[in-house]
Every structure is written in C-alpha cells, then in structure tokens.
C-alpha cells in the first residue's frame, strides 16, 4: 500500500487525529500524503499545531485546516509567526486549546464510549471558562466531552499481518488512544511482519487498525 492509498477516502470536513509528541511518533509520511490528497475544511486533533518536527504545519499552511484541537499552538520561529499563528491572528482558523491530559483523556473517552467525564484539571482557569463544573467531596471538577475522529494517522514501529502494532519507547504517546477513537485508523510503520507479533508484545491490537503503510526508518 502506498502512502496515497493509505490516506485515500479522507474527505473534506473530516476530523483527523495525528499522533506524535516531543519529536517521537509523528506519522509524517502519511501527513505528507494527506497534504497531497488535499481535503479541505479539516479539523485536526493533534497535540501541537506547530511542532517543528511534524508536518502538521504543512496542512495548515496549505489552507486545508478549519480548526485545530490541541494543547500547544505556539510557533518556534522567534523571527516570525508560524503558518498557524498567522491564520489564527487573521481569524482564519479556529482553535480549541485543552490541557494535555484532558486532550488525551477526551480522546480515550471517545474510543471508550464515555461521552463526558469530570476532571480536576483546568478548574478555575481560562480553559474551563463556560464549562460545566461540579463539586465532588472537597474538590471542584470540570465536565469535559469526548473527542472522536473520522481518521487517525499514527506512527508505530512494527505491524503484523493482523494489524497488531508495537511502538518504540516514547513513540506511542497519543497513537493508541487516537486509534481507539477514530473510524479509519492508518498506521505508518518502520517494518511489517508476516508472522504474528507475540501476544504479550502487542501494544495496540489490530482490531483498532485498518490500514498499514510501511514507511521504513524515515519519518
């Protein structure tokens, strides 16, 4: 399967989840293929809208993105604004910023059939403004809603014929949760195995994975 085939069918208006954090686990070849495919009005669910090691910004710079749900949206270029920041300044892109733990718990909830949950994170801050709150015991909590996606593009290490995945070190980050929360799950991997990954080494069951793109070492 080519990268283009792997992302085929992602439509205008889709909500697309992208894994990766701190330089590990970006599905950059799939993101490049998505840019070439060119759907518009996307909502991206990605931890950082602006990470310099991810291709996310290319989707944004290409004008394909209507909204970003993330925990970080600050460009690293001190000499100017990132593509995201320029669009944000111009009011041409919508932004929903969540605390990182809420970001990933909402994705986990989306994949786990939980429509909403209470969390202590963010209570009393601007990020909880307008959100329902409730006191349980001695603490106050914020009600947060699940996040689901039409597609997730995640990066892993090895995939087997059954779609089972392993991840290297911190590569997993948001990938497993995103895979549970999206309708179409595409894994970009280093290597493919015809023999099954041993049961105790599988880190994400193939039940959650729809397509595999073997990218090799490049990311």
């Amino acid at each position: 399967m080519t990268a283009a085939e792997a992302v085929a069918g992602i439509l205008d208006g889709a909500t697309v989840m992208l894994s990766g954090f701190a330089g590990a686990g970006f599905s950059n070849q799939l993101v490049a293929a998505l840019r070439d495919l060119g759907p518009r009005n996307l909502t991206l669910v990605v931890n950082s809208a602006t990470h310099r090691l991810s291709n996310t910004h290319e989707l944004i710079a290409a004008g394909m993105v209507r909204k970003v749900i993330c925990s970080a949206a600050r460009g690293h270029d001190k000499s100017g604004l990132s593509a995201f920041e320029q669009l944000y300044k111009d009011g041409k892109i919508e932004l929903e910023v969540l605390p990182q733990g809420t970001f990933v718990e909402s994705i986990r909830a989306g994949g786990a059939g939980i429509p909403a949950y209470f969390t202590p994170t963010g209570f009393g801050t601007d990020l909880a403004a307008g959100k329902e709150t409730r006191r349980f015991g001695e603490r106050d909590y914020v009600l947060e809603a699940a996040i689901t996606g039409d597609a997730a593009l995640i990066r892993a290490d090895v995939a087997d014929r059954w779609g089972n995945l392993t991840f290297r070190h911190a590569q997993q980050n948001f990938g497993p949760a995103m895979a549970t929360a999206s309708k179409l799950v595409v894994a970009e991997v280093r290597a493919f195995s015809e023999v099954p990954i041993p049961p105790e080494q599988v880190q994400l069951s193939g039940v959650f994975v729809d397509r595999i793109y073997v990218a090799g070492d490049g990311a």
Partner: protein
Amino acid sequence: MKPLNRLQMAWRAGQDVEDGTVVNLGLGMPVNVSDYVPADFDVVVQSENGIIGVGPLASANASDADLVDAGSRRVTLRAGATVIDSANSFAMIRGGHIDVTILGAFEVAANGDLANWDNRIPDKGPLVGGAMDLAASAQAVWVLMEHNTRKGGPRLLEACTLPLTAVRCVKRIYTDIAVLSVTAGGFLVHQILPGISRDELQQRTGAKLTFAPDCGDLVAPEIALPEA
C-alpha cells in the same frame, strides 16, 4: 552573596526531594533538579509523554529520536524504567500518583494559585501542555522561579495577574533569594539569601510574608552555568 543562579536553584530544590518518591520535572530550570538528587536515592522521574524512570541525557552517539522526554530532550531510561502511552501517563498524573512536580512559573499567589502559562503573547498561539494536569493533581507542587521579574516586579503576589494554571496548588517556592512555603496564612519564609534582610525580601514580594521560627540562610555550592 550573589543570588542563586538557575542551576543552584535546581540544586536547592533537589535537596528536598525525598528517597522513594515519583517526581515530574517541568521544562526549563526544573529538569535540572534530577542532577542534584543524591545518587543512592530511588527517585523515579516521570515525564508526561509516558516515560516512567527518565535517566540521564543520552550521549550524542547513543541518542534515539524515539527516546525523548516531554521537553524533546533525548534521554536514557534508568534501571527499572518503562514507557506508557499518554492516556495512561496522564491517568497516572491526574490520579495523584506523582509525589512532587517541580514547575517553572510566572506568578504564585499567597493562596497557592499558580500562573505558569501565558496566552497573551501578542499574535503567538497559546501553549499549555501538561502543566494544568500536573499542577492540579500532583501530591505536591513546587515552583522554581526567580523572585522578581526582569523589571523588578514581584512574582509572589496576593493574587495572580496572569491566567491561572491551577488554583490553590503550590506548596513550596524556590527562588534565587529565598525558600518559601504556602500555608493557610500565606507565604512562610524558610530561608533567605545571606545579605538580604527580611524587610528587603518583603519589599521584593507582592504579598505579606511570615517568617518561620527557624528561618535560616539560603546557601548553595558554586555551580557554573553552561556557556550559552
């Protein structure tokens, strides 16, 4: 005596890390704290991208792009380490399994309110990351920050002026000139840099200070900053 430099501040906080604890260290100054925890201590450094047991920085020829901490630093794993995904990592954080998180900050209020993210930089997008989760749910939140802003204004205040990260969460503050805790009665000073009087410390602070009965000197060994 000179105010503590950033590594001396990290050293000072490191002296209070207890054996057998799980700590999470924020970006910037706090990540250096682990360098100053006694080597025989069994301290687990958790990084919110899922590393449980961060070891020293990786050497250049042994670094691995997939083995990074939440600050994108290429690190190693200590013995007994494991790596989990972000959902489980934040479940661990939110569930109160981090004994101490040491964070940088812009402002701390006398009731423990913390402001360490800012979405007001002109044109720049907001950046919150995992700070709100850590501040809300770690068993103890310690702050490592300069006592005053570059313009000389106070960072310890009656009430924060910047957007909050979490309410009533900070327990201890390590600055370049003092060590304080947050109590029901506000800021309590435990150590002051020799040469700074109580009055001067109060003048440089935006909230009323109380001094602990055993309030002593803040002293740190010489630690040179790396060249920029």
